[in-house]
C-alpha cells in the first residue's frame, strides 16, 4: 500500500494491488517525520486496466477470461488495483509525501481512539465497522462482548466493540437516536435500554408503542448470550392502570398543563383554574367545586340565593344553594363557558384513569435502579410525561440543591429519561405538554444528573434547542432529504457519510459523538430481548381463521355424524341443533362455515341438480 497522487494535509489516495480496501478501515501512513498519522478510509474503488470501460473499443467478455483461466490458469484479477480515499484523523503540518508506505495498524496504535471505557462499566452497543483486522490484537477483556445479527444469521463479534461509558455524559450529556422505519432504530433503542439495565442505571422510558418490554427472547438467540435476567430489572406500567397522577400533589401550573394536554385550553380557562384550584385539592374536592360552579352559573346568582333561602326546600338542598352562592362569590366574573371547558377536560382525564393512581411505583423502580417503562396512548403519555418527568426531575433537583446548600433532603437518584417518537414530546415550532420539561433537562439536566435519550425518525421535527444539546447522536438509515440535511447540520458526519445514509443496512449506524470527537461507524449488536409484537398481523389473521374453523368443526362434526348427510333443506334443522348446543347461526352463515370446512378438507360436498349435500369426509 502506498500514497499516490495529489496529497494534502488532510486527505490522501492510497493504492494497493493485494486486497480491496474497506470503507471505514483504519490505516497508518508510515511517515516517521509526521509521527505516523492515522487515517480512515472514506471512499473505496477498484480498477483493472484490462477491464476498462470503453464502449468504442468493445469489451472482452467473461467467457474469454474464463477460457484463459481454465486453460492456462491465468487470473485477470491479479491486475486489480484498489484505491482508497483516506481522511487523516488529525491534520498534519505539511502534505503527506506521495509514495509513502501505508499499512494496517496494530490494535495498540488505534485502540485509544476506538475504545473509550471499560466494558464492565460501559454500554456495549455494537461492533465498530471494518475493525476485524484489529481484533486479534485486542486485549482479552474486549473479546466476545457482543454478537451480531446479519442477514438473519447470528455471528460472533468480529471487531472492536463499541463502548459508551455513561459517565462521559456528565461532560457530554444526552443521546439522540435517529433513523427511519426499518433502519434498526428500534432495535438500537432496545440495545441502549438493555445496557442501561445491565449497569442498573435508573431509567424512565416513555413507550407509546407498547413495545419496550424485555421478557421475550429473540428468535435464534444463542444460549448464554442473554446473561442478565431482565425481568428483574424493569417494570412496565400503564398510565391509568398501575400509575397515574396524584391530584393532591398537582400545582396549579401542572393542572393547567394537564388540562391543556387533554385539549388546548384558553386563557379564560387558565384564569378560571387559577381562581378555583386550591393547594391540597383532591380530585373530588376540585371536581365537585367545578360541578357546583357550573350548576350555580346555570342557575344564576339569584337562583342560587333563592335556593339557599327557600323555606320549602330540604336542608340538603339549601346547603347546595349555600355552596353555590359561596362558589359564585369566589369565582366572580368567570364565564360559564370557561368553567364548562374545564369540566369537560377534567372529565376526560378522569375517565382515562389518570387520577386513580400515583407515580409511587415509578419512583420506587428508579430508586431500585430499575428501568420504569410507562406505556400509554401518545396523547395521554404526553400529559403524563409532563407530570412524571417534571416531578422526578424536581425531586432530584431538590436533593442536589439541598446538597449544594449543605442541607438535608430526601435522596433521589440520578436518572435517564428515554423516549421513542421524541418529536411528539418536544416538537419544533409548537408546544406540547412535556416540551418545556424536556427542554429544561436538555439544558440543565447534566448538573443534576438527569439525562435524555431521545429517539425519533424525524429529527427535523424535534425542537432545535434540544437537538443541539444531544452530544451523542446515533444515526441509522435515513432517506428523507430534509432529515439528512438536519443530521448533516447537527453532526460531524462527512459528505461521504451523509451520502451513504439512505443506503445503510438495517442495524448499521454512524455514532457522532463529542466524546469521540468524530463519527464512528457501528453495527449495533444483536438484542438480547425482543419486542412483544413480533407476530405478523397477517399471519395472525390466518391463524385466527384456522382456529375458528377448528372450533366450529368440533361442534358440528358430531352432528354431521349423526345426520349422516345434510342437504340444503336440512340446514335449518342443523341450525336448530346448533342453537341447542349454544351456537346460533343463520342458514347462510352455517352454509359459509360448512364451505370453509369443505375447503379445509374436513367435509365432503356433493352437488346434484343444484342441491348441495354435506357429509363428513371419511
Amino acid at each position, binding site marked *: 500500500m502506498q500514497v499516490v497522487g495529489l496529497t494534502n494535509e488532510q486527505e490522501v489516495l492510497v493504492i494497493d494491488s493485494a486486497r480491496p480496501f474497506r470503507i471505514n478501515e483504519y490505516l497508518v501512513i508510515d511517515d516517521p517525520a509526521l509521527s505516523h498519522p492515522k487515517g480512515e478510509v472514506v471512499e473505496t474503488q477498484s480498477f483493472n*486496466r*484490462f477491464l476498462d470501460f470503453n464502449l468504442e473499443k*468493445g*469489451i*472482452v*467478455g467473461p*467467457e*474469454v*477470461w474464463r*477460457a*484463459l483461466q*481454465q*486453460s*492456462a*490458469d*491465468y487470473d485477470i484479477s491479479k491486475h486489480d488495483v484498489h484505491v482508497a480515499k483516506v481522511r487523516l484523523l488529525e491534520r498534519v503540518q505539511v502534505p503527506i509525501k506521495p509514495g509513502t508506505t501505508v499499512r494496517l495498524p496494530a490494535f495498540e496504535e488505534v485502540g485509544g481512539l476506538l475504545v473509550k471505557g471499560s466494558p464492565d462499566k460501559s454500554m456495549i452497543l455494537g461492533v465498530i465497522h471494518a475493525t476485524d483486522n484489529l481484533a486479534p490484537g485486542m486485549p482479552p477483556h474486549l473479546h466476545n462482548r457482543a454478537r451480531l445479527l446479519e442477514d438473519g444469521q447470528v455471528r460472533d463479534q468480529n471487531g472492536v466493540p463499541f463502548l459508551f461509558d455513561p459517565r462521559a455524559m456528565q461532560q457530554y450529556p444526552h443521546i439522540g437516536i435517529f433513523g427511519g422505519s426499518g433502519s434498526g432504530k428500534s432495535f438500537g433503542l432496545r440495545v441502549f435500554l438493555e445496557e442501561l439495565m445491565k449497569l442498573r442505571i435508573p431509567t424512565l422510558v416513555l413507550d407509546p408503542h407498547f413495545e419496550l418490554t424485555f421478557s421475550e427472547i429473540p428468535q435464534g438467540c444463542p444460549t448464554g448470550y442473554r446473561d442478565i435476567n431482565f425481568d428483574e430489572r424493569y417494570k412496565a406500567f400503564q398510565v391509568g392502570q398501575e400509575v397515574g397522577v396524584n391530584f393532591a400533589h398537582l400545582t396549579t401550573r401542572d393542572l393547567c398543563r394537564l388540562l391543556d394536554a387533554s385539549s388546548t385550553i384558553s386563557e379564560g380557562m387558565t384564569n378560571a383554574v387559577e381562581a378555583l384550584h386550591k393547594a391540597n385539592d383532591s380530585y373530588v374536592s376540585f371536581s365537585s367545586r367545578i360541578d357546583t360552579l357550573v350548576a350555580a352559573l346555570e342557575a344564576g346568582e339569584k337562583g342560587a340565593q333563592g335556593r339557599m333561602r327557600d323555606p320549602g326546600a330540604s336542608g340538603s338542598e339549601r346547603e347546595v344553594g349555600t355552596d353555590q352562592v359561596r362558589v359564585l362569590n369566589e369565582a366572580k366574573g368567570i364565564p360559564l363557558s370557561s368553567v364548562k371547558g374545564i369540566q369537560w377536560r377534567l372529565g376526560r382525564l378522569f375517565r382515562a384513569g389518570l387520577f386513580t393512581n400515583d407515580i409511587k411505583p415509578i419512583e420506587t423502580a428508579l430508586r431500585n435502579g430499575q428501568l420504569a417503562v410507562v406505556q400509554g396512548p401518545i396523547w395521554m403519555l404526553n400529559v403524563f410525561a409532563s407530570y412524571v418527568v417534571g416531578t422526578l426531575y424536581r425531586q432530584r433537583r431538590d436533593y442536589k440543591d439541598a446538597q449544594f446548600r449543605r442541607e438535608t433532603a430526601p435522596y433521589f437518584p440520578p436518572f435517564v429519561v428515554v423516549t421513542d417518537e421524541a418529536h411528539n414530546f418536544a416538537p419544533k415550532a409548537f408546544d406540547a405538554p412535556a416540551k418545556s420539561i424536556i427542554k429544561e433537562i436538555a439544558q440543565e439536566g447534566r448538573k443534576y444528573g438527569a439525562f435524555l435519550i431521545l429517539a425519533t425518525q424525524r429529527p427535523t421535527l424535534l425542537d432545535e434547542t434540544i437537538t443541539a444539546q444531544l452530544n451523542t447522536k446515533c444515526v441509522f438509515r435515513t432517506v428523507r432529504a430534509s432529515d439528512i440535511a438536519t443530521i448533516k447540520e447537527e453532526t460531524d458526519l462527512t459528505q461521504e457519510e451523509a451520502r451513504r445514509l439512505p443506503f445503510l443496512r438495517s442495524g448499521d449506524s454512524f455514532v457522532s459523538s463529542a466524546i469521540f470527537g468524530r463519527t464512528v461507524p457501528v453495527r449495533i449488536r444483536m438484542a438480547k430481548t425482543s419486542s412483544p409484537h413480533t407476530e405478523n398481523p397477517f399471519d395472525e389473521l390466518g391463524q385466527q381463521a384456522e382456529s375458528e374453523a377448528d372450533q366450529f368443526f368440533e361442534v358440528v362434526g358430531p352432528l354431521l355424524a349423526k345426520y349422516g348427510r345434510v342437504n340444503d333443506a336440512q340446514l335449518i334443522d342443523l341450525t336448530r341443533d346448533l342453537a341447542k348446543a349454544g351456537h346460533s347461526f343463520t342458514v347462510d352463515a352455517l352454509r359459509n362455515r360448512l364451505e370453509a370446512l369443505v375447503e379445509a378438507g374436513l367435509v365432503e360436498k356433493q352437488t346434484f341438480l343444484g342441491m348441495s349435500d354435506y357429509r363428513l369426509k371419511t
Partner: protein
Amino acid sequence: MADEWVQQLEHLNGRVRTLLLDDALGDKLHRRDTLRRAGEFLRLRRLAGPELNAVLGGGLLVGVDGSINTFGGQFPYYVDLLRALALPSSGEAVVVKALHCPIPPDDGADEDTALRNDNEIRQNKLAELEVQAAITAIDKFRPKVILMDGPLVRFDMRAKDSFFILCQNVIRDGIALLGCIENIESKVIGTVLSDEIPPGWRNRYDRDLLWDLLDYGEALAIRRPAKGWPRPGADPDRAVPICTWFMRASLDPTVVGLDMLAAQTDLAGRCVDYLFTLSPPDGRGIPIWLDLVDREVRLTDVELDAYAQLLDPQVRRVFRSKRDARFF
C-alpha cells in the same frame, strides 16, 4: 460546397468500391471456389471442458511482443528504448532490453537513406530481441504454445540466425509456434495459387481477397508454404518454410493471419481452435493474450520519463525536441 476535399472524397468512394468492394474481385461464391484451390475452409470451435484443458495440458502459454519507446526529436537526435517481453501464463516474464541511438549518423549516406537505414537497424534489433526472448522462454518455461506478435517471416528476414535456432528448438521440443498478424500485408494467396490465379487477383493483398468472405468462426487453412521458399539469397539449408492461415475470430469482417512453420502445420493447426476461443467476439479478432502482452511491453510515459532523467541535463538537452516545448 466549395470544399475541394468533399468532391475528392466522393470520388474516392467510387474508386475504392470498384477496386475492392461490390464484388470487384468476384462474388462470394466464386471467390470461395477459387480459394478452395489454395486451402481448406475450416469451422472453428470454441473449446470448453476437457478439450480446453487438453490444449496446454497443464503447460504454459507464452506470448511474445516487442516495443520501441522513443524520446527525443528529429533524426539522429533520439534515443530508442527497445524491449521484448515473453509473458508466460504463469511465472515471471522474460524481458530483454536494448538501447538504440543513431548518433553519430552514418557518414557518406544522405539524410533520407540514413534515416531509412536507421529504421531498418532498429527494427532488426527489435526482432532480434523478440526472438531472443522467445528462445529464453523455451529454456525457462518449456511452454506448449508460443504466440508471437506479427508475421513469422519478419523474424526470418530481420533476425535470421536466431530465428533459425528458435525454429529448431520448437520443433525439437514439440512447441507450437504461431505468429498472429493483425494487419495483414501479405500476398500469400496470390503466390500459392500462382498460375491458377484469376485475372484481377494478381498483386492483391490477402486481406482484400478475404474481406467479408469468412464467416465469424471460420478459417482458411493453407497448408502449402507460399511460393518463394527459400527466399532469394538465403541459405537453402537454413530455410524455414512458413504457412499462413487466416481466421475470422471476431464479428469484425477483417480476417487475421496465423503464421506457422510448415513443419508444424499439424501441431500448430490444432491450436487454432484454442486461439479462436481466446479471442473476444467484439474485439479485433486476435487472442486476448497478445493484447495483454502488448499492454505489458509498452513503457508508460512516466517510466520513459524516469529513464530519460538518467541522462545528464546537458545531454538530455541535445535530445529535446522543440515539439515538446509547444504550448498546445
